[in-house]
């Protein structure tokens, strides 16, 4: 397993949202879709195809794994996913990268407005 998060940065918007959803607790696919929509104020709503394509990639990269625990009244078709410690590190590294982007953007946007030629 690759322990260095740098080759996986920057994360795609879908991967970032999915990892962010799973940072708190294990969730099933539909739960992830709803949480992504909530996080983005409804601006980004990945469908099941997009979600599972990204989940599959994240699982193969060792950032997400299946959580086998399930409660008794769960639909058997539901599967829960959780963040691995490596996924958490990649997420943290990407959030740091985004912070520096936001810092730079703030500096430039607060500066003098460009003059008209």
């Amino acid at each position, binding site marked *: 397993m690759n322990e260095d998060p740098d080759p996986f940065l920057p994360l795609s918007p879908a991967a970032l949202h999915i990892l962010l959803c799973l940072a708190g607790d294990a969730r099933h696919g539909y739960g992830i879709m709803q949480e992504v929509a909530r996080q983005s104020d409804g601006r980004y709503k990945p469908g099941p195809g997009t979600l*599972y394509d990204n989940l599959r990639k994240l699982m193969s990269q060792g950032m997400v794994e299946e959580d086998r625990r399930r409660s008794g009244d769960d639909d058997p078709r539901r599967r829960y996913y959780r963040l691995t410690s490596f996924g958490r590190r990649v997420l943290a590294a990407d959030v740091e990268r985004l912070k520096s982007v936001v810092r730079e953007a703030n500096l430039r946007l607060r500066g003098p407005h460009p003059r008209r030629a």
Partner: protein
Amino acid sequence: MRTLYKYLVRLHPPAFRREFAAEMLWIFDEAAESEGALSLCFDGFVSLARQWVLRSGSWKLAVAGMGACVQITAGGLIFLLLGQARGGAELQTHHASGVALSGLMRLIVWLVGAIVLMVIGASLWVRSFIARRMERAPGRYSLT
């Protein structure tokens, strides 16, 4: 609409289908009212194209086939042009050799076409063979 979505999910590559088909259908059942069945079907269609074209590596086969066709066509045209430029007069005087040349050209094109088809057929057969073996012993074989 659910039947359409079910078929869209069924048409996904086997590895993806085995892993996520049941969940995708479950999400359709849960979210069809709130998200709209049509948008979920559209997502299923996009996913189908993405999985086959981008993820399964079928595009490599298509590109290889197209590349082979371009090479055969270009090679044939160059062969004909060179033949005309070099020995046009000679071919006119020796009509029989011109007929032999076009016959040879046709034979080469047929042979190369047959080889390309055999390679494509063998590739598809090997893929399905590995997929069958994977079903029997998951983890021992990998398509990617």
